[in-house]
């Protein structure tokens, strides 16, 4: 304990879910900085520090990535694949946070190396609790780097 809170990168396209997440962050006084990207491409740009994230400090390295599957341009699983394929990013903890209950998505996520697969709880209360728990968990855990 006594660590610096890590950065959380969230890739999510649904504006309402983003609102709900931000609200949950505030409600539970989550100390971790939250950065949000809206599609798969933007996510990779952020991670590589490319494009509009080229400025120094524009894209602080995240401790964990919360990744939705259904996103425009590049979808979550493709992003995951890229991350796991890149030597520099390989170890990054990726949590798939999605509405999909589908088995195939779950299987594929774990096959591609996701660290966890969480189905977004219905109702905000539950959702914010889940967010809180995710953060608590990853506070406890030793991050790779």
């Amino acid at each position: 304990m006594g660590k610096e809170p890590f950065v959380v990168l969230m890739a999510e396209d649904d504006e309402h879910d983003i609102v709900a997440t931000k609200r949950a962050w505030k409600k539970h006084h989550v100390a971790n900085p939250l950065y949000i990207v809206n599609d798969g491409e933007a996510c990779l740009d952020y991670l590589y520090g490319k494009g509009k994230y080229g400025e120094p400090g524009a894209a602080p390295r995240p401790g964990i990535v919360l990744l939705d599957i259904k996103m425009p341009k590049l979808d979550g699983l493709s992003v995951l694949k890229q991350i796991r394929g890149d030597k520099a990013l390989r170890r990054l903890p990726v949590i798939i946070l999605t509405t999909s209950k589908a088995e195939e998505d779950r299987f594929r996520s774990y096959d591609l190396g996701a660290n966890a697969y969480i189905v977004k709880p219905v109702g905000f209360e539950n959702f914010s609790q889940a967010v809180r728990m995710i953060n608590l968990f990853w506070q406890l855990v030793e991050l790779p780097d």
Partner: protein
Amino acid sequence: MENAKTLNVAIVGGGPGCKAIMDMIFAEKLHQLHMNLIGVADRNPDAMGLVYAKEKGVFTTYDHRDLYKLENLNLIIELTGHEEVTNQIALTKPEHIRLMDHVCARLFWDVFQIEERMIAEQKLAEKALRKSEEKYSTLVENSLTGIYIDQDARIVLCNDQFAEIYGYSKAEVIGMESRKLVHPEDRVLTNNIRTKRMQGEDVPSEYEARGLTKKGETIWITRRNTIVDYQGKPAILGNIADITQHKRAEAALRDSMQRLQVAYDQSIMYARQLKSETVERKQAEAALRESQEQYRTVLEASPDPVVVYDMEGKGIYVNPAFTRVFGWTSEEVLGEKMGYVPGENWPETQVMIDKVLAGESFTGVESRRHTKDGHIIYVSISAGIYLDARGASAGSIHILRDISERKRVEAALREAHDELERRVEERTAKLARATEQLKLELSERKRMEEALRLAHRDLRVKAADLEAANEELSQYAYVVSHDLKAPLRAIRNYTDFLREDLEDILEGEQLTYLDGLKRSVRQGEELVGDLLEFSRVGMAAEPKVSIDLGVFLRELIASLSLPSDVEVAMGDEWPTIEVEQTLLRQVLQNLTVNAAKFNTAERKRIELGCLPTEGGYQLFVRDNGIGIDPRYHDQIFGVFQRLHTREEYEGTGLGLAIVKKAVAKMHGWVRIESEPGLGSTFFIALPSLQKES
């Protein structure tokens, strides 16, 4: 006697010894010595020897000195035993006369005795031998068998019989080699046996062999041989008999015995055959008698009149039925010609009689006869020839069935028949008209059937279209409900956020609006959720799996987490069925939840079971809930159909629609039995619950 020495002897002492010696001398037992007694002296005139000498005419004296004067006296034997006498004689006798004193005489006597005994014995032996030899010779010569002695392989002795057997004379045989008399083929045999016998080995004493006659003929000999001693050397004593005839006779006997045996066996066979034939014949006779008895009994019992005639047409026998119908008894007809044929029926009757006597039999010939009291009745006649025990024609047997009744019936029948014909004609005409009518109707119906078939086909097409449309609709509903979920969730969240943030600021009424908004959204979410579920029923083709229905249901009930005041009863016996699991789960889940929900009983009870039916089984879910009015039994399975307001019971009205859709996907059906206040029972029939057809 010519060679014997003559010795003139005188005896002094005429005692018993003297006599004995005198006997001896007289007997001339001594072969080499001829003793001539010329005198005997003794003082005693009564001496035995003296008396004996006198009898024999021999010179006697009382004084022994007288003896000296005897001419040519060679020897004086002194037998007195007195020594003075011996001395005196010795002194006084002339020198040329020898003196044998009593001692010597005694010695001489003993020797003579021994010799005499030997000679006597020898003579006896010789006599005995001669006798036995005679006997033996007689025996041998008189024997019927041939006797011989074979020594050194020659015949040294034989009897006439022996020689005769071989066709020789005795003289020819004696000295002949014995092998000459044996058949060449048997010589080795006989030689072997003889050699062995001579060596003392154990060979049969009696055996048969072939001999050879002088003429060269072969004869059969049986012989009995033994070893004897002949003239100091071993020889074979044999005893033979010619058994040639015997052998021939034996052969002939054997032959005739065989023939006799054959003849005997044959005769036994014939005897057996004859016996069995006799038995058979007796059996046949018995059977015939028995069957005759049976027939007699049958005739007696026959309900039809039966008459038996002899060859001349006289009655022999009528049965009780005859007496009953015609009136005459058996006694009345016996020996009489039957006089019951009406005049006009005679010709045909005669024909019948002739036929029967010729050996033909027939049945069913109709005729008429009188009865005893004059009635005429119609009869149907069957007749045949009647054979006796030996199979010869003995008469005829006639059965006369009374057909009067039948005739009457026939007449009535004919009348009825005519009437019938008339009516039939009438009817036929009518029928022809009706047939025409029918033809028209039939063609009309064909037309209709065709129309029906076409309509049916259309219907099927429409049903297929409908199904397709339903599927499309389902898909659409799925997509829509799926995509509606997210916006609805967002609305609800924002509603929650607003309420949270503005709780202090807003007034009571505005807060109610927000609450209302929240509730609406929730309803919308529920609706969309249920619709999604409904549309998803059977969307993915699901394979059937084999499940134990009992286990499946128990797991399902457990997973529903029903409230504790709900009791679920299940039977113990559940079948194993092939079914789409997900669909079945949806059906039973919804029905069970409904059964618990629409229930106001204090002790809520749900029963799950399997009802046996004609075709198999039906699953049922029974509750003691509020029940459903029969008016709505069809309606309730519709989409979004509810019988209660939201205040009474929550729900979207899709539960039973889901059940119906799922059951349909499983190719089964669902029905309900229910009355308000009496609970409900839902019955589900599924293909795998039906018995194989």
